Structure formats: C-alpha cells, structure tokens
C-alpha cells in the first residue's frame, strides 16, 4: 500500500549524549525502550523515535534504571501514567486472553481434529475398475520401461505405473 511516512526522524542507535555511563544499565534501558511505544508517533518504539516525547521518556527510564528500579516497576510506572497503550507487548491478562490464546487454540483444535480423523476407520483401498486401468494403460503406454522400484524399502512395492504417477505428481 502507499505508505506516507510522516516522521523523517530516526534514533535507534542511541544518541551518545543520552547514554548512561554503566554499559549494563544502558543495555537494560535500551531493552526497555524497545518495548515502550512512542505514544504520539504513528507506530514506533521510543527506541526508534526522535520525537520530543520519546526523548523525554528515554530520559525518565534511564533515570529510573540508574536509580535501581526493576523493569517491572518501570513498566508499572509508565502504565500508571499513560495506560496499557504504552506497552508494545500487551500484558497477559484476562482481557487479552483471546489475543494470546486464540492462535494456539486454533492450532490445538486443528491438531485434535486431524488426529481424530487419522484414527478413524482405515481408508479402504479401492482397486481400479477395468475401464480406469484401461484408460491409465493408454495414458502411460504399454512399453513404459519398469522404473527401479524405489518403494521396496518402504515395505510395499509400487508398480511401475504407480511410481510413474508419483513422479508426474511432483511439485508445487
């Protein structure tokens, strides 16, 4: 789609003038920045944005990291101030249960359906009718040389005809 990007300003690699002296603390702060939304921007983390608010938030978070507050404490502080909207990673809460669980529920339901289906009655092998065999023979041609029966290792030996068909049916 046509995308008009409104902010031509960028941050990401942290501004040297903002950095904390302790590399471990700076690392923690950067990690937090990536999970915090720049609430006035379009859809960016404060790590990526050069907007004034992002700058201010980075400052606040760096101060709190330096003061020794934990990641969870800092997140709680930000949520109290700006609401859940500021967390780029939505919380695991009852409200967000469908968000987090639905994909896995779909996967599980689909998996269970497939397993039940597989456990159902074994598919009967219907032999080809005389007319079908005739048509197939006409398709493949009577003088088709027998192909090395690869299937012997599989515990069943496909006829040359079957293998030919398998080869024809390769692919996307």
């Amino acid at each position: 789609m046509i995308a008009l990007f409104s902010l031509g300003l960028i941050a990401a690699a942290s501004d040297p003038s903002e950095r904390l002296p302790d590399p471990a603390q700076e690392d923690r702060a950067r990690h937090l920045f990536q999970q915090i939304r720049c609430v006035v921007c379009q859809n960016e983390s404060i790590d990526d944005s050069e907007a004034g608010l992002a700058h201010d938030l980075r400052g606040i978070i760096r101060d709190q990291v330096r003061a020794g507050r934990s990641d969870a404490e800092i997140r709680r502080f930000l949520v109290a101030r700006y609401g859940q909207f500021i967390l780029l990673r939505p919380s695991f809460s009852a409200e967000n249960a469908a968000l987090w669980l639905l994909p896995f529920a779909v996967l599980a339901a689909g998996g269970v359906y497939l397993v039940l289906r597989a456990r159902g009655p074994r598919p009967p092998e219907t032999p080809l009718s005389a007319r079908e065999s005739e048509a197939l023979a006409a398709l493949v041609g009577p003088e088709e040389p027998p192909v090395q029966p690869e299937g012997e290792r599989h515990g069943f030996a496909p006829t040359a005809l079957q293998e030919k068909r398998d080869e024809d049916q390769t692919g996307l």
Partner: protein
Amino acid sequence: MIAELGAFSLILALVLSAAQTALAAAGRITGSEPLRRAAEGAAAAVFLAVGGAFAALTTGFVTSDFSILYVAANSHTDKPLIYKIAGVWGGHEGSLLLWCLALTGYGAAVALTGERLPRGLKGLTLMSQGVLALLFIGFAVFASNPFLRLASPPVEGRSLNPLLQDPALAIHPPFLYAGYVGLSIPFSLAIAALIEGRVDAAWARWVRPWALAAWSLLTVGITLGSFWAYYELGWGGWWFWDPVENASFMPWLAATALLHSSIVTEKRGALTGWTVFLALLAFSFSMLGAFLVRSGVLTSVHAFAVDPQRGVILLAILGLAAGAGFALFAWRAPRFAPGGVFAPISREASLVLNNLFLATVAVAVLMGTLYPLVVEAVTGKTISVGPAYYGIVFVPIMAAALLVLPAGPLLSWKRGDLSGVLQRLAAAGGIGLASALGAYLLSDPKHALSALGVGLGAWVVAGALSEVVERGRIGRSSFVETARRLAALPTGAWGMTLAHIGLGLFVMGAAYETAWKLEAADILAPGGDLRIGQYRLTLDHLESVQGPNFTADRTVIRVTRHRRLVCDAEPERRFYPANRQSTTKVALCFEGLSDLYVVAGDTRPAANGQPGQLIRAYWNPWVRFIFLGPVLMALGGLVSLSDRRLRLAAGRRAAAVVQGARA
C-alpha cells in the same frame, strides 16, 4: 479536456461492468452462446475503458495539469518523470484506479484466455468479476474520483511526499496491487464453483495458475515494500509488524495456504471445501487490507492517505463481497463430495499440516492487527500489540512448520513411509544441526534461539536440495541417468525447490540479522572516526548537493577495514522545498551478504568543541538473504507457473489419447 475524457472513460467502465455482470448472468440463465460471448467482450471492454481512464490520469501527471485536483495534490513540475508517473498511484484516488485497472485486467484475461475453462464456470467467474468491478469502479466514480477539476488551478503542485520518491517505492504499488487483486480470480472461481455446486480436480487446476501468479506478484510487492522501509526509514529495520504490513501479509499467508491445499485438490480431489474457503479468504484479506490501510482505523508507521468516510465505503464493499462469498460457502459447501482418502503419513497429510500452521499464523496476525480495535470498541481502553507478540506467537508456530517442511515433498501420495523419508533427510538434518551449532559457537554474543533459527533455515534449504538429490539419484546412478531424471522433472518441482530454498535462506538471514546486527553512533568532526565491528568510519568532509527537486547536505565518510578502503559512504540529509520536508538518505555499502548502513544525523559540537555531526552506523549481517530469499520464492512461483501451460497441454493430449482408446 483530458480529465473529462478520463472521467467519461471511468463512467463508461462502470456501465460496462454492469453490462458484463448482466450479460454473464443472462447467458447463464438462458444458456445463450451469443450472450456469453457478449459478457466476455464486455469484460475486455471494461479493461480498455479503465485503461483509458488510467492513461488520462497519467497524461495529467506527465503534463503537470494542475487543474486536476488530484494531480495538484500529488505532483510538481520539478519532479523527475518516473516520480511524476509514480504519483499516479501516490494517493488514495489514483491507487484505487490502479486497483480497478488490475481487477478489470484480470477479468479481461479470464475472458480472453480461458478457452479451456468450462463454459458454465467461465460465465459465472466473469459474473463475479463483474460484480467486483461494479463495486470498486462505482466507489471510484462516486466517492473517490481522481478527475475532479479545480476552479482556480494553482501554478505549482503540492508534490509527492519525498519519502515516496524512491525507485523501489515507485514500482512497489503496481506489484502489490497486481498481487492483491490477482486473488480476485481464485475468489470468483470459488464463487462460480459454489454456484455450480461442483468442485473437482479440474477446478483446482484452474485456480492454481491464477493463485500462483498473484502469490508471486504479492511476494515481490511485499519484498519491495520491506526493502523500501529498510533503507528509507533509516534505522535498519525491515519488518515492524505494523498494521499496514500485516494487511499485506494476511492475504499472502492465505494465498500460500491456497497454493498448497489446491495441490491436494488437484492431484487427489480431496480438501475441496477447504480449498474453496481459502480462495474466498485470500481475496477477503486483500479487501480487508485495503480497508485497514485506507480507513485509518489503525495507527501505522506507514501513515497513509487516510479518509474515514471512504473507509466506511470500503468496509461496506468488503462486507458485501466477502459476506456473500462466505454465505454461499456455508450454504453450498456441505454438499461437496468427499475427495480421495489418505493415510496420516502421506503427502496429502503433510500439506494439510502445512495448511494448519499457515491458518494458525494467519489467525495470529489477524488477532494482533484487529485485537486493539476490538478491545477499544468493547472496553474503551487502548492497547498496543507490538513485535514482541509476534515473537511469542508467530515465530514458534512458524518454526514448527519449518521443522516439518522438508519431509512433505519426499512423502509419497496416499501413504508415505516416514522412516524412509527421515533416512533420506539425515544429511539435511546434519547440515541444519551443524549450522545451528556453528552459528552458536562462532558468534558473540551467544543467542541460542537465533542460532536455532539459522539451523532451521539451513535445514529447509538442505532439505529442498535433498529432494533434488533424491529425485535425480545424484551419486547413486550414472551421470547420464541422473541427467535424464533431472531433465524429466516437471518445472513445477523445480519451482517448489526454488521457493523452499528461498524460504530457508530468508529464515537464515532473518535469524542471523536480528541477533547479530551491530550498531554504533557518535558525533564526528571532520577527521573523527567511529568503529563498528571490523570497520572504521572516518568523516572526510561535508558538501552541498543540488538535486532535481531537493537540496542536500552530503556527508562523505571513508569506510576502511584493516586500513584498506572499503567504500565511501555518502549519506545525505535532503530538503524538498515543494513539501517543506526533510528526509535522510541512507548510505549502504554492500559487503557480500551483509550491509554497512550509515545515516547522517543532526549537526552539533563534537567532544573537542569543533562542529560535528551525529553519525549512526549499523552492521546488518546476512541481510541480503532477507531480500533475496523472497525473490527466489517469487521466482519459484513463476517457474512453477511456466509448468502449468505445459501440463495443461499434456492433459489435453492425454484426454485425446483416452478418447482415442475409447473410440
């Protein structure tokens, strides 16, 4: 004058699409051959009429006719010609016209090339395409007309957003739209099959080439968009799980699932209902994407030409078309005859598993995109769903899909032998494990999960190659025999191999780049330097540059590695006076599979008090795989598409043989 011709052409197209729908329906009811033919003619005529409107708008842009509101809003006399033309689809009205052009183009293609399509199916497909054309062209004529005149034309236009003035983005929308709208043909074929009440292998065979073509174009379109974001947005990211990106990713996932399930329907007559459902879903996702992007209900890093009122109309079109499709499905699909049976371990079962994974991740992307809207509507609270959500939900499910992927093509139809397949994949498994271990041990810092990702990608690549080795009996037969076998492989098999290799390379690149990219930033005065990995960046000098419609401050940076010059990076900060807007132009140094990515920031005093500039640099290792992988996938789609004609022709010959045998 040209605007009136365009507007007339567009209205003509609207009337003709109504005629196409009516004629196709009448032809169906009366069984009259002339009416059917007339519907086909109308489908071609609609395309010509929309083409005329499109040409008129393009002329307006090329001649800078600012009496046309849309041209005045999106063009400027100083713009290079390519961006004048790209301006046609640079805004809302023009991109809708491009959508209509693609839609009617596909309709005309079915009308003109569908010689072998059963007449009933063809007529109903054209009828459904006619309804879609009626809806979208009607939208263009009544609510989004690009030919509106200005009473007092301005001397100069407002120009296109400078960020859109970029070669990759100029061609990105045509590819993307051709992909989005290409999915309308599987949609219409599904509607036709539901009305006919019959879905069989022949139907799947008809869907596949259209789905393949649309999927390949969509793949290229998304990749171009991602590449644009990578070097234009300026922080080295290439995918942000942004709603606009998700809007294009959902139809892609559905189309990918459709490609795989239609194989089962075509070869074995099974999964008929599911394949029809996916055909409906893929284009419904396309329309949902158009709605999400145009209506502005979601905030996006790609802010777009937003118009809530038009969003409502798009929502109505989506509801009408998708609603009718799925209602028809609910009514008719239960009557479909069950198809061929297959064992739990078989090629069919592996493709079913593929579809389960793809459907699940499509649900995840849909939830991530729409859940904030739902929560806000229900509780009034706002939440954000950022990349972390997809890392937790999307990535593991996709990883499971990649883990089982290489086994699928090696399993035989109906009943496969898993232990035999696993034996044949032993080498690929070894390569995958060795890659994961190597990535873990040789890289610093250690990232176990990313190393596993690299291994998984290598497993997919090696698995795809194993399949070729297996089919060609490379190393187990004489050279001549191997060559004979490989030459006899259908091109569809090669297409699949290419696409799977592309996917594996993409995964390797994505895992590697995400974990081991480096970044550095510092304020440099001339002569100052910045180290990143093994590279040293030295700021040489600054210069001013005059572009065709911008002025730029260019920073020339010498990049050396072990004292040897690698490249001169020349990032720019551009100012476009027409838009009064500044942008940054990233400098990329291609280093094999990797990029050194340099951005010039604002000017400020350096540590020694001299005037300096903030320089940011990124080392993006293996990033080439991220963009080349999808290109290979699209290429695989095209290779596979070339097989279709051959196989269809072979099918006809075979049919002739059967008839000959019966006679």
